């Protein structure tokens, strides 16, 4: 098992923007909630329940094909900053990492596969949260990955399963398939043309729900929305995924139409907004994360409309991740005050946009070998 330091790209496979519709759909995530027989669920689990669950997962994680070369990150062994980095990379939830001033619960861990876009949260609300995150709109691919891991783990560990209710979970909203599929979409066209509230309302009517970038309870920033299935019982996994896929494709179509309306009816204003956003990003000396996200939204729109042809979606994806507070502190090697953080963020953005190279705070600059979007 490697340590945190040995895997700087942990969980970042989806950044490469290689998936379908990657200029609008950042990532597709499919997760399965699973629990083991004979142990209390997360909130009521005693220390030995949690440690027994983690021990069984550790025992098998090296032997499963899906988790080949896996890294097991035990939350109590990590400092608060590194735990927050896992949150910022969407590998861990707030509940799993605990708070900055309190130790996380014993037995809480994240297992990250070395070869596949897969990870497992251990001892969160449910004993296991199996998750696959891939670039673009690729629900079937994410499902196929996580399904295979589920089959492999389920052959080794006795899952809690009921012939009528399906997979048993701590919260009844996950019972049945335990499947939550989320597609992270960028919808500036629908926001700018004020069509977004109609779209969001329609999602509710067809049994889907939306949230902000970081999931439950988070705000919508930078016009990024997560669209997910709402129910998990009474439909097969394939039906849940197909339904979400169909609806997201319609949302993408509306978004594309809205962008064309913007260009047609307010082309000069739209172009000005995009170039102003790009100018601010390139030259600002201080950027809050919220401001960055809103500017990135404009620049992303510009890239998609081919108004900023020299930029690539991969670069923008990377900017979103590496400019989050804990990532900046990790790069600086120390805690940062909010104003220092804003200055470091602006400097990092200038460096990336100035060079357009593959620069990460974890390592030296190198040429960008990842595929261009749509390639």
């Amino acid at each position, binding site marked *: 098992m490697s340590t945190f330091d040995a895997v700087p790209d942990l969980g970042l496979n989806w950044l490469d923007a290689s998936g379908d519709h990657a200029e609008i759909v950042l990532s597709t995530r499919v997760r399965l909630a699973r629990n083991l027989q004979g142990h209390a669920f997360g909130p009521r689990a005693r220390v030995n329940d949690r440690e027994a669950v983690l021990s069984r997962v550790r025992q098998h994680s090296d032997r499963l094909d899906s988790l080949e070369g896996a890294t097991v990150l035990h939350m109590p062994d990590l400092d608060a900053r590194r735990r927050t980095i896992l949150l910022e990379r969407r590998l861990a939830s707030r509940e799993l990492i605990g708070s900055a001033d309190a130790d996380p619960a014993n037995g809480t861990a994240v297992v990250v596969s070395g070869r596949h876009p897969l990870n497992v949260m251990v001892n969160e609300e449910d004993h296991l949260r199996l998750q696959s995150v891939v670039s673009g709109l690729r629900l079937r691919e994410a499902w196929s990955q996580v399904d295979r891991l589920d089959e492999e783990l*389920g052959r080794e560990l006795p*899952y809690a399963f009921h012939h009528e*209710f399906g997979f048993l979970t701590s919260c*009844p909203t996950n019972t049945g398939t335990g499947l939550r599929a989320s597609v992270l979409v960028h919808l500036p066209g629908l926001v*700018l043309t004020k069509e977004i509230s109609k779209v*969001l309302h329609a999602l509710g*009517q067809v049994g889907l729900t*939306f949230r902000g970038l970081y999931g439950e309870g988070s705000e919508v920033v930078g016009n990024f929305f997560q669209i997910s299935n709402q*129910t998990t019982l009474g439909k097969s996994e394939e039906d849940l995924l197909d339904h979400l896929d169909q609806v997201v494709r319609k949302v993408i179509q509306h978004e594309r139409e809205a962008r064309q309306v913007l260009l047609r009816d307010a082309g000069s204003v739209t172009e000005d907004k995009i170039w102003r956003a790009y100018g601010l990003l390139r030259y600002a000396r201080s950027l809050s994360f919220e401001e960055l996200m809103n500017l990135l939204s404009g620049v992303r729109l510009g890239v998609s409309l081919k108004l900023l042809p020299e930029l690539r979606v991969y670069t923008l994806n990377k900017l979103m991740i590496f400019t989050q507070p804990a990532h900046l502190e990790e790069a600086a090697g120390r805690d940062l005050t909010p104003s220092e953080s804003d200055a470091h963020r602006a400097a990092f953005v200038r460096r990336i946009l100035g060079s357009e190279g593959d620069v990460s705070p974890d390592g030296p600059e190198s040429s960008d070998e990842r595929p261009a979007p749509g390639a």
Partner: protein
Amino acid sequence: MDCENCGEADAVIHLTQVVNNKMSSLHLCEQCAAAKGLETEGPPAASFPLQEFLAEMGGESPAPAPAPVDEKCGFCGLTFQGFRKAGRLGCPHCYISFEGHLRALLGRIHNSTQHVGKVYLPPDPTASQLERRLEGLRGQLRRAVDAEDFERAAGLRDEIRILEAEGVT
């Protein structure tokens, strides 16, 4: 940043509008955004009013069968009242302990109480578990064929054959 409409609450929605070729930005709190038709949360149909469901089940509405206060899970000791308060079950056995109440609750949340997805096969399955898994796989195979997903259908067919062979031996 304060809301530009009421100036009191924090702005959580940042809206850029283009009207008559002029762009303007609006920073609004949740309440003012909702008043202008832009919701930060899903519309009522999109949210899970789980606490409301649970409250109704406990007799706070004219629900016909309030749960007895001392009903308790024999494995983890969670009471039904405790579940209603937290919205989380204590262990897999709670699904047996509170089966009747949960069936009603699951029906309301999901519009169904019958799982039709993957059928789990435990490490040392009994004959009936094996048969249930086979039934589930046959259903998945039918759906894959209907959807013309032949690659998946082929995989399911192979799995069914392997399990059928195991069942015979």
